[in-house]
């Protein structure tokens, strides 16, 4: 539960308010990125510059490799930078400081250094943003030892996980979903879970659907599909890809016997393969059919709405895939 302020109303407020709280609590927390003083393109950092000044909310030129590299160096030297990479697709221009520096330098120095760095970025297909502004590349990052990868779907988790990321002494990639920015904080209790703990967002005994980010909501929506009438679908929000909460997943699938992993990322060589495989390895003799994945088709994300819809998973295709599992 947020420590000081009121409950954030929306996903994007959770980002903003948690940043503010952590900046308030620790003078070493600085926010760095393109146009962060103006709030960046979705307004996630709005108001911070006015409150904390340009020395702690630092606009940068379009030079992401240098910026992220500098953030790594600043983290090694005692700051706790929260650096924004505006679209996840742009990790392509700053992968080295993420993968070869932030992720590895603690190990390479034999534990000699802490790198308390958060790389905030956002993704979210389905709005015709085109092939270079729509990718979900979390699988690439999860593959790199040394990086943690958080992907909240819910404003409460945004707050809790962003706080945990900022307080983590190692690098965390924090992936927001722009299509969730306006989603409201649900009523009900605020159950804080640590990174590495998945959340069962809908209980069910017949089949497990594992998702994160925007796909959690789509999975919940899929439960309303008439093809799944009467089916007990357990929907699990993974929340963090690294660390991975295999325990919760195993317990669920052990009970349901069937599972689908859903993600916006391209299916082939995607993150779902690891999850599905880990479950299969453990539960081969207990499952009632192959654990399956549903990700984006093997294509760059097209611009035209009907094409993009054909490429990305959504409630209908999730429901279809769950139905197919049950009929397997």
């Amino acid at each position: 539960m947020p420590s000081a302020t009121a409950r954030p109303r929306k996903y994007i407020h959770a980002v903003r308010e948690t940043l503010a709280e952590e900046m308030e609590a620790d003078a070493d927390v600085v926010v760095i990125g393109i146009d962060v003083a103006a709030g960046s393109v979705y307004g996630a950092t709005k108001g911070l510059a006015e409150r904390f000044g340009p020395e702690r909310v630092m606009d940068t030129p379009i030079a992401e490799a240098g910026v992220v590299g500098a953030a790594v160096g600043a983290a090694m030297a005692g700051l706790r930078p929260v650096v924004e990479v505006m679209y996840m697709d742009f990790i392509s221009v700053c992968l080295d400081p993420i993968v070869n520096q932030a992720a590895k330098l603690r190990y390479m120095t034999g534990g000699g250094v802490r790198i308390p760095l958060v790389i905030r970025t956002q993704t979210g297909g389905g709005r015709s943003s085109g092939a270079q502004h729509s990718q979900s590349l979390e699988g690439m990052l999860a593959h790199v030892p040394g990086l943690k990868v958080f992907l909240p779907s819910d404003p409460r988790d945004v707050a809790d996980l962003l706080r945990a990321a900022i307080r983590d002494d190692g690098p965390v990639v924090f992936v927001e979903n722009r299509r969730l920015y306006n989603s409201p904080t649900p009523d009900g209790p605020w159950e804080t879970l640590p990174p590495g703990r998945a959340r069962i967002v809908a209980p069910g005994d017949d089949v497990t659907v594992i998702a994160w980010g925007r796909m959690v909501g789509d999975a919940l929506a899929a439960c309303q599909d008439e093809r799944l009438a009467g089916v007990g679908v357990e929907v699990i929000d993974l929340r963090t890809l690294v660390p991975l909460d295999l325990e919760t997943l195993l317990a669920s699938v052990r009970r349901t016997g069937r599972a689908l992993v859903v993600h916006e990322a391209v299916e082939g060589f995607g993150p779902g393969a690891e999850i599905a495989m880990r479950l299969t390895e453990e539960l081969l003799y207990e499952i009632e059919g192959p654990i399956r994945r549903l990700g984006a088709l093997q294509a760059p994300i097209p611009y035209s709405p009907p094409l993009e819809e054909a490429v990305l998973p959504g409630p209908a295709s999730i429901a279809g895939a769950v139905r197919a599992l049950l009929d397997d």
Partner: protein
Amino acid sequence: MIATELDTLAGDLRAMARIRAFEERVARYFREGQIPGFVHVSIGQEAIAAGVCGVLTEDDKITTTHRGHGHCLAKGADAGAMMAELFGRATGTCRGRGGSMHIADPRIGILGANGIVAAGLPLAVGAGLAALRQGTGAVAVAFAGEGTVHSGAFHEAIALAVLWRAPVIFVIENNRFSEFTDSDALWRGAPLIERAKAYGLTSAERIDGNDVIAVRASAAAAAAACRAGEGPVLIEAMTYRIHGHYEGDAVGYRDAEEFAAAQQRDPLLRSAATLEAADRAGDAQAALDDAATEMDAAVAFGLDAPYPDPATVLEDIYA
């Protein structure tokens, strides 16, 4: 001005008017929700596209940015096919796969807009290299915003172009803003053209990017130098972004007085005034009228066009 110069100016005004009319319709149909995604228009910057592309042939290549409609139109892309692309239709220049930010027509040398800031610069260097190696005499133009100049790709592209003596024209459109930021606030040190000279570019000049006559002259010299094997060169064209960063941007960061002054420097008005002063007001009016007619037709073509068949979605991924 002599008659042929006026003819050229009238032609350039036609090109500018086409861009303006196109962009105005883009803004409108975006606002009305008929164009999906996001769009960045080049209103106020038309003289650069018109003047530079005016000296190019179909063999020459261009790369551009998220704000690339004007360059594509001026380089010869069909307005109807472009509009269809923005509407996400099957008959679009990219069959609906690209959209505004990725609009392209490689068949006529338009290697495309690019959603990654600065990514088009190395592509243009490569296109210039290909022209050099194949001896085609073609040049490559990289259009980029002034926000590009801090990026590593800008630096590496220029270093390579200079090293290879590639026939590349770097056209930096300095429209004051990089998203919501005053670009001058991010700048330190000597003016860009001084930096460019330090890289060893043959020539680097800062020009008034709202004066199509100046743009054309600078581009013609640049292209001639490149074709003569004396490239690469850089042009910093000073202009002003009249709309927001993208359509929908409330531009709260913009200085009202500065904006008003910038509007006075409108490149179309300016060219039209020159024509009028030379008794060729009719040419100016015809340019605007024809552009309106053409772009209305382009919109109609685009809106009438069918959406792509989802069954084709996996085509053209591998060669």
